[in-house]
Structures are given as structure tokens and as C-alpha cells.
């Protein structure tokens, strides 16, 4: 089940659980500004192939 989180929980997940950040905004918006370390996978491109590089044993945070 997906959990909605705030910034504090996000920071905790990054620090304590090595969470993977996925920016699902369009490429242009990602290019302008994104959270350091975030991977860009635009929503329309979110497929089993494009997420293959993500680890399944670590939390994934989308924004």
C-alpha cells in the first residue's frame, strides 16, 4: 500500500533507509529543478523497463 509522506518522513527515509527518489515530472521540469539524487522517470514512461534500475529491496519515493 502506498503511503503519503511529508518532508520530514522523506528526509528520514533518505537518511535511514537509503530511499530511492523518483521524479515523475516531465523531463523539462526535471531539468529545471529536482531534488539532488532523484532519477527522472516521467509518468508516461513508467514501465517495467524504465524502472528496472530501481532496487526492489529499498523504499521508492515518488514526487
Amino acid at each position, binding site marked *: 500500500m502506498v*503511503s503519503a509522506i511529508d518532508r520530514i518522513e522523506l*528526509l528520514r527515509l533518505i537518511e535511514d533507509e537509503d530511499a530511492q527518489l523518483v521524479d515523475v*515530472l516531465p523531463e523539462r521540469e526535471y531539468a529545471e*529543478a529536482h531534488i539532488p*539524487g532523484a532519477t527522472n522517470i516521467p509518468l508516461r514512461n513508467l514501465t517495467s523497463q524504465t524502472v528496472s534500475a530501481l532496487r*526492489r529491496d529499498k*523504499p*521508492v519515493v515518488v514526487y
Partner: protein
Amino acid sequence: MSPRAACRLERLGFEQVYDYVTGIADWKAAGLPTEGTALAIQRVADATRPDVPVSTLDETIGDVRQRTLDAGWEESVVVDCDGTVIGRLRNNAWEADAETLVENVMESGPTTVRPDGPLHPSLREWRSAAPSSSWSQTPRADSSVSCCAKRRDAYSQANRPSSSGRTATDAPDNGKSSHTPDLQSPTRLTHADYTTRFRHYRLLGSTIRVAEEMSTEVP
């Protein structure tokens, strides 16, 4: 958009999926670093320092003065028991008797600016709103202080070439601050740097704020 992405990831077999609902806007509003071409725009957060000394109403000027000067500042933010900014100490306050209580010599709080706001327009507003002020604060939504910008530091930062090669045309004022921090460009922030900021913000217990669109205007 992110709720749909989160659901799709779940269907793709990911078991630990989280949705940072307020996203990059909330991140920027907190003054946290970002990467990308928008770094050409300097933000207020780029000119702030998290090490602002704070004091409480029931402390004595002697104690606060020593702690403030030892930290390399000439001003102290006065907070209540919840950390809410209620005033500041500067100038004549330091000349008071050492046993004088802070509440008897403090003045009203410093100008408040948003950390995600563009630096250059904020400097203009700062100057017109508080021409005698030497510094300003960037608080959280609940009014407790997160970090401060000295006017001299802010002008120094604004006059550094941005990644677009532009600089501000404002001249630095004649602030009396003797301490100019090594204000890093966001483009040079390392993972360790922002991890440190993460910890700082976690300690402060940030609350959610909504970011405004950043202006590209340069004075």
C-alpha cells in the same frame, strides 16, 4: 501525478512505495538544495546561515552577549519556549548591564523573508521595508527561526556571478558584520552537505509550506 505513479510502481511489484505529495515545491519552500538549470536563480536560502544564535527572555545580557560574540555574530534572535521568534538583540542591547534580562532590552523581530524566494527581489524589498536593518531571518511556517541572512552576506551572495553569468547591480551596503561565511554555491553542494542540512531541518521539525514561483528578475 505522483499518486498515479506510486500506484503504477506498486502494480509493477514494488512493495515499499511512498508518495511525497507536496513534492519539489515543498522542498524548495524549505530552502533545501536542488539540482538543475534553475540554479541560475539565486534564492534567499543561498545567503542564509543556520547557525544564528538564539536567546530566551529570561536569560541575562551577559550570558547571551558572550555566546553571541563567541559564535561570530553581533545579533541574537530572541525566541519563546516554543522557538517562536519574538524579537532580537543588537546594538545598544549589548551595552546594558550584564545582569539585565533579555526581555528588558530586546527590540522587535527582524524582517521575515521566505527561503525559497528569489534573492534579488527580496533584497530590494528588504532594503525598502527595513532600511536600518542589518539582517533578516528566514523562518519556518510556525514562525520559529530556521536560519538568518545578514544583509552584508546577502549582498555578497547576490553579487557573485550566477551560473548564467549574471550579477546583481546593487552595491553592498556598509554593514558592520565582521564575519563573512563561506557561502557555497548550490551547484557545489555535495551529498554530505545536503545530508547535513537534512539533519538540521529534521532537528527543527519543519512544517509544510507552499512554494511560490521563482522569478528570474534581476535588479
